[in-house]
């Protein structure tokens, strides 16, 4: 198997790990870590599948991954702010398991 193949398969493993972490972890910071790892896995598949080609590496997936990295950091930043604000109001950095019952708007 080619080197790129290793990375594509590692990407699949990272996707699975990220999904598992997202489902299992309760702490929101960890959920955000899991989303980031899931994203890294998708990016690895995207580039790793390009594989070694005679015409050199394909720049289009590279550009897509750079876009993806910037989107990921934006989403992470928003998620962290949300987590902090939620912790300030509810006292816990986790999501409640049940649907909210109280009135929504003050």
């Amino acid at each position, binding site marked *: 198997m080619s080197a790129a193949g290793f990375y594509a398969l590692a990407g699949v493993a990272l996707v699975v790990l990220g999904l598992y972490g997202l489902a299992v972890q309760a702490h929101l910071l960890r959920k955000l870590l899991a989303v980031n790892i899931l994203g890294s896995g998708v990016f690895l598949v*995207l580039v790793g599948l390009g594989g070694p080609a005679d015409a050199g590496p394909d720049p289009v997936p590279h550009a897509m991954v750079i876009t993806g990295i910037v989107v990921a950091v934006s989403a992470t930043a928003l998620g962290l702010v949300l987590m902090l604000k939620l912790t300030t109001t509810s006292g816990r950095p986790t999501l409640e398991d049940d649907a909210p019952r109280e009135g929504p708007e003050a």
Partner: protein
Amino acid sequence: MSPVLLPDLPWEALLILLPLTGAAAGALWPPAARAIGLLTTAGGLLLLAGLGTAVADAQTLRHAVGGWGAPLGIELRADALSLVFLTATALVGLGVAVYADSYFERSQARGFWPLWLFLLGALNALFLSADLFNLYVTLELMGLAAVALTAFSGGRAALSGAMRYLLATLLGSLVYLLGVALLYHATGTLDFSLLTQRLEAGPAARTALGLMGAGLALKTALFPFHFWLPPAHSSAPAPVSALLSALVVKASFYILVRLWLELFAPLSGLEGAGTGEVLGWLGMAAILWGSWQALRQPRVKLLVAYSTVAQIGYLFLAFPLLTAAGLPDPAAWRAVLWLVLAHALAKAAMFLAAGNLLRFGGHDRIPDLDCVAQRLPLTVAAFALAGISIAGLPPTGGFIGKWLLLEAALLQGRWDLVAVMLLGGLLAAGYVFKVVGHFFTPAAAGHAARPVPAAMEWTALTLAILALLLGLAPAWLLPWLDLAVGPGPAEAVP
């Protein structure tokens, strides 16, 4: 080239650039954000009229961004299908913008407008994109804007709903992107038309279908991926709830429809029919579960949110309906597009009306609604009219949509779909009249009432009336929808 008075402009590009530029300008100069927000939202309707006439002329417009063309560059595409969704966006968007102008305090409003314009720009960009990766970027732009708007009021429930929504939407987009990665490496293109020509059935195509379908179903909140929707949609500020339920869930549904109709269903050798059946079952489950939950909810906004879960189910009933040749049934898809429009208008009206009830009484507990029929007649009329459309009773837009869908299911002898649709309609009538009944009864305890601005009442009513008018104008709309879902079964078989 066009016989009407509109000049030949790049409408697609303008529809995307205008709101996004407005968002940037509003961020730069917050005091002008309100004026910019209202003007660009209204301007979008004009641009849409221009695009509509152009599409009526040419049927499909393609715009090669950067001048490169597929597969190297990104292409925009406007056709009747995108026009249906763009129209819903423009109408609901304008109504909600007018509503939001009265709803938010002045200091709050400055933050609202740029976020709303980001959402509008992302929706327009999404409905006009013909490129799978570009769709991913628009999905993320839309998702983050929607999450920010959900959390906007800052209460505990809203923050928790927004956080759940953020995680769900990120997960959905990334899973979709994984499918895009597979398709890109299988075909060497991201463009829809080229993919249609190049994609062959195989493990890659099958896995991509599964991944993209799952990711988009999660973002559309199809049962059982609906867990994030009721908390987010019920806790967001009312105008935001309207946007989320009416438009944002439809955006990922739109991509799913495009993928299904253009890529996967026609792919011979790929057992697309099996996937269609699964989506149909999930749709049926969504109708029953969502309606049942809606019936049990003690609060108006939660009830309306669960009603969205149920109504999304109807949109998925067209997937299992196929023609004799095994192709998607245009009659069923025509019905679904009708339902998309009707649901967007009616659901927006319902959430805006619910917002009025909240503003008025300070709560939206259904049993404690205190004779609001006499005190907020316009709001009550809006809620009732929109509810009739949601329940699919004549003569509303929702009735026509459900009738068309029922007809398609009957023609194919799908009695399971027919039964679920009828049961769902009964349950919907039940939960709508449960609320409406409490409008007329006095509550046990009196509550302090706050005045509701007239603009907020009238926008809710206008959207509800539009949903009603939709039911009276089938002759005008049906040709468009036929254009959108492709030729009928007779022409499709070679």
